[in-house]
């Protein structure tokens, strides 16, 4: 009988791990809270830094999941985790030989930064909203007109102690640059302003893309964090920041304000970790064994991690990590069954 | 390693047959230096250098102060070159760093924008009937002395050594900004590590002082000095350099630019008046020499022949260190033993109550 591994979460990390396990002759079972697989990458338009359509990456994975007949539970929430299986909210228990936690992250709720007026002003949107809009092929203001001036604000819900998010979400800077370029491509005559505290371009091709945004697309980068936004009489957004490089307060009116929302740890991490006997890092993500050789192992034998459950990660990092997780699981199961 | 980098970049310098262009500032403040240059080349080295009475100011000060337009200065420069050709020379040498910069700049402009050269030819022809001939080589007179530094060393009467201690003299060299900061290729050693003065010092037995503000401007900067409201900035730059070099206890400063020599010398007096600070090991200021004066002393010229009585900071302590024999009484006697007048004692040449070394230590 094939060894069975339950994967909690059917996003990019969970799906890819399932395929990698299957390839190693292990039977994966995905438990997904949503009614379909795909996680946060679903509905995403294009990926940085190459502008690859997200569907080009996600669809083949989904197709393979189907082709390989990976068993999936949909609309099922896991309430407890142990190395020998998970409990579902329905009360059902799925036994297994190992568990992979691939629960990912939660998008920061932009409502929490009320001073930016998300949900309050018509044309304040999040980076996720923008992806959806681009996916639908229609990026417009609520009155149906085209934006002529757009501001993109970095670090919304990242590096902000006022909303208890001390960590850097890692992917927003490059997303901001990517979206600025995309907006410039849709609206070549529009002015795009990126407001940032620090620009962190750590990945391959990121710095180059940043430079391209500056030089080729004439995206304006203002070093200053927007502190408040207000709606003007004609439904435009008036924003205030300090242009820290000139040392003067800056005020401008834009048609659209895009908030680059960060990645928060899942609210449920705390209770789930408690059931599994795992601990969390101060920022609420799961704590891996270490940052190097034990990056996908938990502090407990038989429980593994994949993807953004342990820290904010890009899609590329997540997919790469999946095979690491699968090989760690494989190694663990071999040792376990040889002993018996 | 460091030394290597200071002499890394070399440029081609003609060995003979120079057409000499003078400096406005030096003719007024250091007339002995230009005289000494010609004497050294003629008498000591036997080199042909032509001092043409027809040539004029390059008008560079006016140009940098926005009173002389570009077209005018180009035409003036074209005339100098025309005179050179008429006199049968093709190696143009300039006594002034500002002029040197101007000549290089204009030649480069003509190169980049040939229409300006055409226009200048026309203006020159219309105004003077002369024909522009571009020189084969352009050099600053310090380049020339540098070029012949070993020949001078061979003829040296004395070296840059303290005769009382036998130690080499510590020399601060200062290069004018327009020597190589405009066109790095125009200077020996390039713009960052010009070697032109350092090479002379080393050949003649002195020790070059390398101090933090070595590359900093003396502060002249034309409008910085010419407009009184800006003079505070001008003196602040010299002040910065002097503060920076003082702890190294240099025996003297040598500069290759007329303005720098003048300002590093005269600002010492102004700083003494303003702040009561005097530099130099005994609080009597740091003498500032031109490279010709330095070469002249090495070759055994009389300091008063070299015009060293024109200095703000008294040079006698330096002469004593070098073991130069001179007539104290003859300092203020001009041509034919005529008394030229003696300036009053000023703060810089008196020992000050607040000396830089005491403040720093």
């Amino acid at each position, binding site marked *: 009988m094939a060894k069975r591994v339950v994967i909690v979460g059917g996003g990019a990390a969970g799906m890819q791990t399932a395929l990698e396990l299957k390839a190693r002759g292990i039977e994966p079972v995905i438990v997904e809270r949503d009614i379909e697989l795909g996680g946060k990458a679903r509905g995403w338009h294009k990926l940085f830094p190459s502008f690859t359509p997200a569907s080009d990456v996600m669809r083949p994975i989904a197709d393979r999941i189907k082709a390989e007949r990976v068993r999936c539970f949909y609309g099922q929430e896991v309430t407890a985790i142990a190395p020998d299986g998970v409990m579902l909210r329905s009360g059902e228990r799925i036994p297994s030989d190992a568990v992979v936690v691939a629960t990912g992250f939660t998008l920061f709720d932009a409502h929490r930064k009320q001073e930016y007026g998300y949900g309050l002003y018509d044309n304040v949107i999040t980076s996720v909203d923008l992806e959806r809009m681009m996916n639908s092929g229609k990026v417009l203001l609520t009155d149906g007109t085209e934006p002529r001036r757009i501001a993109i604000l970095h670090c919304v819900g990242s590096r902000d102690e*006022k909303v208890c998010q001390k960590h850097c979400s890692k992917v927003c800077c490059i997303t901001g640059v990517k979206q600025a370029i995309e907006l410039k491509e849709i609206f070549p005559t529009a002015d795009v302003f990126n407001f940032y505290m620090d620009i962190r371009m750590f990945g391959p091709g990121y710095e180059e893309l940043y430079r391209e945004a500056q030089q080729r697309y004439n995206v304006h980068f203002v070093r200053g964090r927007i502190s408040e936004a207000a709606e003007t009489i004609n439904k435009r957004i008036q924003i205030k920041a300090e242009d820290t490089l000139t040392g003067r*307060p800056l005020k401008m009116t834009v048609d659209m304000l895009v908030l680059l929302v960060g990645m928060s740890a899942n609210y449920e991490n705390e209770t789930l970790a408690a059931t599994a006997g795992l601990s969390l890092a101060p920022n609420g993500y799961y704590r891996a064994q270490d940052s190097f050789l034990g990056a996908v192992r938990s502090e407990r034998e038989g429980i593994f991690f994949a993807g953004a459950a342990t820290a904010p990660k890009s899609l590329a990092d997540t997919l790469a990590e999946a095979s690491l997780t699968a090989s760690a699981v494989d190694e663990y199961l071999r040792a376990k069954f040889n002993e018996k | 390693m460091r030394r290597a980098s200071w002499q890394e970049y070399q440029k081609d310098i003609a060995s003979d047959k120079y057409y000499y262009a003078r400096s406005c500032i030096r003719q007024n403040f250091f007339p002995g230096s230009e005289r000494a240059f010609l004497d050294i080349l003629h008498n000591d080295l036997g080199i042909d250098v032509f001092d043409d009475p027809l040539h004029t100011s390059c008008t560079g000060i006016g140009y940098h102060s926005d009173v002389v337009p570009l077209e005018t200065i180009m035409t003036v420069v074209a005339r100098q070159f025309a005179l050179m050709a008429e006199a049968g020379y093709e190696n143009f040498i300039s006594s002034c760093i500002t002029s040197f910069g101007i000549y290089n700049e204009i030649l480069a402009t003509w190169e980049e924008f040939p229409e300006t050269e055409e226009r200048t030819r026309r203006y020159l022809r219309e105004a003077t009937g002369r024909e522009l001939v571009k020189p084969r080589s352009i050099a600053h007179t310090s380049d020339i002395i540098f070029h012949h530094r070993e020949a001078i060393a061979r003829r040296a009467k004395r070296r840059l050594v303290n005769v009382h201690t036998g130690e080499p003299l510590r020399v601060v060299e200062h290069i004018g900004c327009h020597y190589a900061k405009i066109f790095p290729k125009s200077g020996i050693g390039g713009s960052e590590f010009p070697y032109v003065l350092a090479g002379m010092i080393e050949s003649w037995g002195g020790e070059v002082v390398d101090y933090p503000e070595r590359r900093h401007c003396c502060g002249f900067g034309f409008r910085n000095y010419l407009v009184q409201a800006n003079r505070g900035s001008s003196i602040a730059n010299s002040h910065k350099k002097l503060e920076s070099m003082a702890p190294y206890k240099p025996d003297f400063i040598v500069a290759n630019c007329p303005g720098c020599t003048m300002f590093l010398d005269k600002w010492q007096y102004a700083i003494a008046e303003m702040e009561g600070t005097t530099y130099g090991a005994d609080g009597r200021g740091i003498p500032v020499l031109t490279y010709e004066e330095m070469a002249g002393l090495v070759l055994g010229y009389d300091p008063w022949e070299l015009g060293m009585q024109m200095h703000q900071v008294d040079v006698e302590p330096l002469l004593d260190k070098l073991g130069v024999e001179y007539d104290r009484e003859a300092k203020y006697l001009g041509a034919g033993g005529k008394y030229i007048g003696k300036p009053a004692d000023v703060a810089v040449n008196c020992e000050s109550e607040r000396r830089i070394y005491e403040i720093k230590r």
Partner: protein
Amino acid sequence: MRNLNFGYGISSPRAINLDNNDLRKSNDIIREMPELQACIGCGSCTASCTAGNITSFNFRKLHTSVRRGEYQGAYEELSKCMLCGKCRLVCPRGINTRGLVMLIKRKLGDF
């Protein structure tokens, strides 16, 4: 002889000179409020500043200058602050900005 009037003086250098600046007060301030060092210069404080929107008062620049030992005029400048506390609400690094204003003023003049 020293009374000669040149019509100008030696301009003081514009550079922040960390060799010469007296950092004792600055160190005192940082010791009492170490979180100040966590400032990433995002400018949120200055952007939201009630006083800064009417005057040239720039809190970020000011406390950075004080940290560098540039105290000249800092006290007078800080007197423009209304202590309203908006800056504390927006600071992503959780710096106790109001306390800081009072601390700097205390170190540089009050009492």
